[in-house]
């Protein structure tokens, strides 16, 4: 098999070829290790070698031999895990995250640990303490975030597939920016054990893949109740590879009111194209209301920082990670955390601490939790009327490095379509809808189309996404050589 075919092959195709004996697992691993080694996107923070990649590997699993890139937010025993933060520089965990363990048990070697926004806080990967990650479609642009590295390595031909995490859009938005598939499952579908916490009530692990079938295969391996995670549920009956060709009888709700200002013309055009594809496949398009979804970003930027502020309190210089001062106890805490955290993380810790502090709790945290209830109710009502809710994944295509770093709120607005779904806890996928020019011109870049479904309706979501993916026929191969030097 020619390298070029292996490069373009999906995870499922590679797995099938290993199973049939057409390819050996060793050959496949060597190919991808070589690709990863030529990373010019700063997509990897750590790369495996032949031995370390095969550690803890199960045999005869369903996805035997197809290597997996892992966001550096998942703890991996004996392998540095930093969450792209200075405060965890050089940290080596003594245990492996449940999701990674499951992937390894299914036979997937670990290719490397991917770059990300520090502690998953960001929408551009520019908040990594170890440098920004670049978009393989245009290396002057961001890959999105926070799972920017996980998206860039898959799109840029540095990995066949990867694991990411999504709190407010961190899988879907970079998948959209890089022209690949990104799935955020229902909250609770996959164990969070071993995934470094950002906002515990929102964080969810999910796959970033070349196509919908790969997302389904990975989800099936990763999902399941875990005794180490009280909030994990799993998906009853598991997930099988989707094969739907039509969307007859399915209804797709479009929250037009949410799609007001700030959407690029090109993004909107690809969105409308996709609605036409849906109709051609027999699906019905319906306008719906999500009356409170417009407040989602505001609620999210209270709830997520509040949870983050307490989740990140454990980085104190006592038991692991950086200790920047031994002067006295207070200095140990304050100097360590001041030096160890980057600006966005500090901003969110401050915001969250403020929102929880005496006298402000009701006005901020208590209120945001109630607005969240309203948003949950909005989706419940919507899913009473339609099968799916669809939006563009992001209001823009991938923006330029440095373009949005000066105003935090502008950056936060990149997640305007993904955050309401995160607050509702329901599953959503981003699939490539085609390419579009950014406002102000330039070469064409991928546009993501987001589909959300009711809680634990992943199978249905994947079937619809598969049918639509076939109809769209997106070709992402132009970026496959963008990742290597």
């Amino acid at each position: 098999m020619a390298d070029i075919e292996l490069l373009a092959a999906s995870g499922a195709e590679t797995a099938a070829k290993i199973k049939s004996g057409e390819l050996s697992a060793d050959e496949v691993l060597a190919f991808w290790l070589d690709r990863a080694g030529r990373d010019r996107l700063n997509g990897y923070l750590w790369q495996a070698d032949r031995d370390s990649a095969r550690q803890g590997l199960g045999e005869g699993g369903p996805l035997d031999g197809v290597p997996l890139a892992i966001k550096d937010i998942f703890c991996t025993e004996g392998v540095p895990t930093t969450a792209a933060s200075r405060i965890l520089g050089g940290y080596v965990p003594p245990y492996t995250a449940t999701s990674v363990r499951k992937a390894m048990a299914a036979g997937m070697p670990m290719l490397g640990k991917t770059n990300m926004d520090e502690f998953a806080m960001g929408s551009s990967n520019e908040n990594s303490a170890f440098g920004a990650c670049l978009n393989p479609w245009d290396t002057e642009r961001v890959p999105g975030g926070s799972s920017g590295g996980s998206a860039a390595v898959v799109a840029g031909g540095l990995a066949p597939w990867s694991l990411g995490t999504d709190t407010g859009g961190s899988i879907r938005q970079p998948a959209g920016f890089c022209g690949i598939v990104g799935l955020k499952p229902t909250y609770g579908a996959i164990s969070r054990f071993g995934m470094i916490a950002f906002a515990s009530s929102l964080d969810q692990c999910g796959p970033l893949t070349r196509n919908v079938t790969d997302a389904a295969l990975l989800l099936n391996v990763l999902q399941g109740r875990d005794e180490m995670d009280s909030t994990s549920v799993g998906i009853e009956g598991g997930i099988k590879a989707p094969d739907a060709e039509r969307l007859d009888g399915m209804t797709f709700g479009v929250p037009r009111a949410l799609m007001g200002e700030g959407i690029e013309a090109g993004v909107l055009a690809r969105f409308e194209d996709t609605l036409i594809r849906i109709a051609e496949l027999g699906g019905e398009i319906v306008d719906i209301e999500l009356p409170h979804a417009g407040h989602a970003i505001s609620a999210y930027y209270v709830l997520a920082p509040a949870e983050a502020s307490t989740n990140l309190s454990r980085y104190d210089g006592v038991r692991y990670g950086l200790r920047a001062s031994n002067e006295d106890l207070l200095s140990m805490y304050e100097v360590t955390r001041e030096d160890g955290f980057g600006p966005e993380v500090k901003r969110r810790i401050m915001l969250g601490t403020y929102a929880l502090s005496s006298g402000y709790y009701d006005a901020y945290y208590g209120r945001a939790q109630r607005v969240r209830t309203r948003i949950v109710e909005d989706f419940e009502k919507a899913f009473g009327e339609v099968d799916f809710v669809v939006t563009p994944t992001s209001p823009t295509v991938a923006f330029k490095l440095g373009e949005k770093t000066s105003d935090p709120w502008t950056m936060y607005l990149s997640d305007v379509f993904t955050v309401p779904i995160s607050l509702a806890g329901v599953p959503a996928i981003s699939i490539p809808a085609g390419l579009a020019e950014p406002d102000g011109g330039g070469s064409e870049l991928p546009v993501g189309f987001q589909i959300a479904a009711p809680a634990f309706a992943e199978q249905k979501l994947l079937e619809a996404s598969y049918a639509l993916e076939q109809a769209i026929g997106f070709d992402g191969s132009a970026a496959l050589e963008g990742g290597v030097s």
Partner: protein
Amino acid sequence: MSTEYEAVIGLEIHVQLSTRTKMFCGCELSFGDDPNVHTCPVCLALPGVLPVPNAQAIEYALQIGAALGCELSPVSTFDRKNYFYPDNPKAYQITQAARPFAVNGRLGEVRIHHAHLEEDAAKTIHTGGGGRIKGSDASEVDFNRGGTPLVEIVTEPDLRSGAQVREWGQLLRATIKQLGVSDVNMEEGSLRCDANVSIRPVGSTEFGTKTEMKNMNSFRFIERGIEAEVARQKEVVASGGQVVQETLHFDPATGELHSLRSKEEAHDYRYLPEPDLVPVVPTPAMLEEAASSLPELPAARAARYEGIGVSEQAALLLSFELEWAGYFEGVLAADQSIEPRVAANWVTGEFAAELRKQDDQALADSKVGPESLATLIGLVQAKKISHGAGKTVLEEMVASGTDPVTVVAEKGLEQIADSGELEKIVIQAIEDNPKPAEQVREGNEKAIGALVGAVMKATQGRADGGEVNRLLRQHLGL
């Protein structure tokens, strides 16, 4: 006219549960092991870990709630309490702030505000600096204890004195001990008590500014500490000052109170619902288990004993110590003709005193079983031996374990039943002691004691006191 003040005291009691493992992870609980041998990613708060609650801890907590007469909450939840300290590895403690598992209870005369579950902090040992920067001291943290399940019991401010706190604290300790859910050992820290103390004018329903007294490790110290603090507050107010809210430490060695510095400014704990845990919703089966596992608790037992005629004091003593109550009930079971009041007095009085006297023997080590003691009480009750001889027999029983009938026979302590024999001894005693005899005849009845003593000495305590008295009076012409 000066105002009279009364003390108003509320307690916060921490009870370490004696589960096998920690509250949120599977590390074993132990006491006295080498530092940091019972830790795991969860209790060290490594990145990425999640807590999973211990089912047994929840069950124990529900039992405590039931024993304290609380309403068990249909839904209880966990919260994060945020503060930085090296013994608090997540920098938040998982506790129950908004919805504790038990509310509105009562034990004895004290109302329980609520009881909640939480996790214990690790142990910090302060050590010398040894050449460190600025000669500052260092601390070493041992996470073995970190994450031990705790139930915190918070009372209403219903207590009025240090003595009452001690007595009630002992009742609480006995109650929990009997449930078998905690060692309740104050020295080892499995029971810890903080007291909130304030004073107010008698008759007032307002509360004064309270001070908090931390972590006293015996109820005696707590009593003394509270008395000292109440006296201090009265003095402050009497001299026109105001009580300042602060945390105090009582030094039992000097009897002095020291103010402790606050460990976090303004105590802004920034509570928030713990997103990593789901609610506890006690099922009917869990509630039934908690209720049915309740043994007879001290307060109920004391009431039952008083109901069968046992004195209040003996009833309380027996109720607080399960071992002694079992012994007492063993005596009653061995001989049903023995009055409970009499049996209780022998058990808590003569018998307990004799054990103390002879090397402070533990009840469990005593050679005298409840059946033997019942036999002895039976002998006294049937007037086979005098009460005084009974004590002599008991002394030998405790020393050697010999059964009472044998002791009586060996020592010839059987009561003199023949009135003629006793009469001879009485006449002899009057002849030998003319002076007190004369005094009695002249009307000084108290002097008869000397004559009784002489008879008892001559009979080696084998005579019945009442009979001796009767015969003496007869022969002295009274």
